[in-house]
């Protein structure tokens, strides 16, 4: 299989997945009690009847089911998610405002998790069977078993309530002007707890996977060949072991991206982080399902894009792309 074909296939798959999300949203709307318009408008009867009527028309609820799906698909493809009935503002605008905060949080957590997970996982594998390995593996097992939001609450209790070291609420101090530098520092301090909480859980996962992958590669014949050539241990480690062991991590990490963004709804709720996750929680509380479904669609789109990027990376890193197919 040629590389172009592989990537085209992956892109087609990405489009298919997004269409799947649209269908899923559509099905959920139909499964919900009441018709789609009343669901989207929040509690039945809570919204302005004129608004509901307009929604009904926009959604084409008077037409056949396939037509409704077509109308829905068209509007989502245009990134037209309609209005939020609470704010009376376009849903897209509301989400766009909140997206940077979530990206900051999740990317920081992801970067930390990946770097620490790979580093610790390879150290554990290199010293497999030793005390160090047992300790590192133990840490990974512990963090993997902690519910994210609970770790967050415990971190707040310890570092904010009892030790009073770190802020636990929001993204920056309220009403603080100050220079750019102090703003950045302020955000950074606010970022520490939520990013670490989210990051440690995923670090545990990457550590586990890296360790297994490295151990697997260490057993391969080509590592023995490298030794037979008399290569220095450092070179064997970098060029032969890690280079091959990290290939599956690319795919794995990109698959985890969706989970990480999903995890941000819990973390943002616990730390009152003003991002999309917190927005999703508010939408949930206020039964603003139009907003909630839009968040779901956009998050899925982001995940699909991340996976596509990972596919490109994979093609660049592995000359035998057939294996990834």
């Amino acid at each position, binding site marked *: 299989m040629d590389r172009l074909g592989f990537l085209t296939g992956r892109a087609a798959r990405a489009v298919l997945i997004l269409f799947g999300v649209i269908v899923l949203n559509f099905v959920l709307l139909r499964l919900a009690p009441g018709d789609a318009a009343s669901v989207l408008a929040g509690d039945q009867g809570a919204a302005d009847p004129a608004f509901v009527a307009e929604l009904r028309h926009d959604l084409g609820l008077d037409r056949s089911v396939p037509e409704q799906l077509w109308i829905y698909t068209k509007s989502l493809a245009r990134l037209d998610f309609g209005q939020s009935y609470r704010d009376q503002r376009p849903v897209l605008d509301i989400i766009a405002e909140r997206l940077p905060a979530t990206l900051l949080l999740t990317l920081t957590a992801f970067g930390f998790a990946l770097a620490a997970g790979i580093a610790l996982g390879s150290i554990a594998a290199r010293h497999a069977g030793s005390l160090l390995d047992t300790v590192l593996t133990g840490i990974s097992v512990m963090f993997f078993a902690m519910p994210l939001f609970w770790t967050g609450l415990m971190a707040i209790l310890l570092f904010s309530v009892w030790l009073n070291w770190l802020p636990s609420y929001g993204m920056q101090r309220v009403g603080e002007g100050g220079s750019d530098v102090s703003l950045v520092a302020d955000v950074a301090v606010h970022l520490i707890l939520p990013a670490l909480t989210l990051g440690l859980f995923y670090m545990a996962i990457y550590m586990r996977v890296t360790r297994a992958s490295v151990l697997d590669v260490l057993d391969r014949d080509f590592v023995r060949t490298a*030794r037979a050539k008399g290569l*220095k241990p450092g070179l064997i480690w970098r060029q032969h072991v890690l280079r091959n062991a990290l290939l599956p991590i690319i795919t794995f990490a990109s698959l985890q991206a969706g989970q990480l963004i999903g995890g941000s709804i819990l973390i943002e709720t616990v730390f009152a982080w003003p991002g999309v996750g917190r927005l999703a929680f508010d939408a949930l509380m206020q039964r603003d399902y139009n907003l909630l479904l839009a968040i779901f669609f956009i998050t899925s789109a982001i995940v699909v894009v991340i996976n596509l990027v990972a596919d490109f990376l994979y093609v660049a890193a592995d000359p*035998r792309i057939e294996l990834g197919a």
Partner: protein
Amino acid sequence: MSALVEIDGLSIALPDHADRALAVEDVSLRIDRGEVLCLVGESGSGKSVLAAAIAGLLPAKQLRVAAGAIRFDGRDIAGISEASFRLLRGKRIGFIFQEPMSALNPVLTIGRQIEEALAAHDGGDRKARAARVLELARATRLPDPETIIHRYPHQLSGGQRQRVMIAMAISNDPDLLIADEPTTALDVTTQAEILRLILEIRERLGLAILFITHDFGVVADIADRVVVMKEGRVVEAGRAHDVLDAPSQPYTRRLIEAVPVLHASATDEQDAGDPFLVVRGLTKTYRDRRAPWRRQASGTRALDGVDLTIGRGETVALVGESGSGKTTLGQCVVGLSDWDEGSLRFDGRDLAGTTRERTLRPRIQMVFQDPFASLNPRHRVRRILTEAAIVNGLSYERAEERMSRLLVRVGLDPGAADRFPHAFSGGQRQRIGLARALMLEPDLLVADEPVSALDVSIQAQILDLLAEIKRDLGLSMLFITHDLRVASVIADRIVVMQSGKIVEDGPAEQVLTRPGSDYARALLAAVPGLSWERSREQIRTAAE
């Protein structure tokens, strides 16, 4: 000649819970400068462990040198540090492994991997190294050296990969080249080329070669001296032709006698009965997945208009190298695979492939290659043997009775029925596999490389058993093999396949002595140990 390597009383310990204490026990041997020493033995003889020990490549956690010395160029290296060993490996000791695919790093170009071996031992500056990589690619006769060094391992053939391994191993002009079964995974014609290359390199560089193999034919072709090992000990050592022609130890004699003699002992020209299986114009293409925007999918033609007839009671050996389509043909015959065009008639009836009528299936049965994969590890032998027979309508009692009879027939105890496959050795499992095929009382047996995974002594037993049973039951047999020696022992007729076509079809004796096609001639010429074959023949006739 002076000794390059002297091994003295070497013992290598296995981990505590292994089935024996020592992998290598009190072994002493020497390798002279410039000689080819063959280390021969069956699986579990400790030959590979010994080779790994010389290069300091023992897996540290599992195996360790328990006693004895390994002197390399006068210096004891049995206990030196990993760092000191590193300076020897790749520099003075080169190593080639069995599996050329898995022995190369899949994500680095082969040029890079050769260059690495140079850089590890100060192979000059970048430019000098690049020039040397090209030189090595030429010396190992890699085609189109300038391009091929920029390719990745998966883009090369098996033989080319092994050439790359050799290039890496000799890159720093070592004194010793250790080759651990370097041709076992290769086709015979490729094997012959690689053997020739290794000898040529020895000639040019004057290095010593420790060549590990299980194949006495290969030994005959390349060895100056031979060391025979069994269960970790040296059984016999001596000059190659002395050991081959007049082995002094009973074990060596048994091993050598088990090697099938190539020349067909003038087949008892039995009249091949009426055509029983008739294959006409069988064609099959394995298609790659077609990309949606492409009109036509590319594909490989596994079968390309194959015509084949097997008479009642006849044994036809289907010989070919990997990719020749021989396995695909066998799968079509037993109904594990479909074909695109052509027909298959059996006992006067048209047969389909995978959609074959269930009632016709029992009449054509199969014996598989890998004795470890062909028996369901979760079922007892009883179920393995009787399940299909009962599904096909035999009563439980009759099936049980037939099973007991067959277990005895294939040389096993009837008590074997209550055990699981893992309780048996490879040869015993192959007997169970044969009994399973016979349970359905087939008329035609398709045997796909049934002895190629077995040690040579076991191989001979299974071949004898197959021949015996075939004769007693009057079975027809399609025997698929890559090994002309094996074919010559069992076959009435030999059919040679190449790239999906049949290129030779004739009585065994004729194909082995006067092959009509170039390819069959090339295959025959590539059989290892041809020169030895002649002296064996003379010894045999002298004895008779």
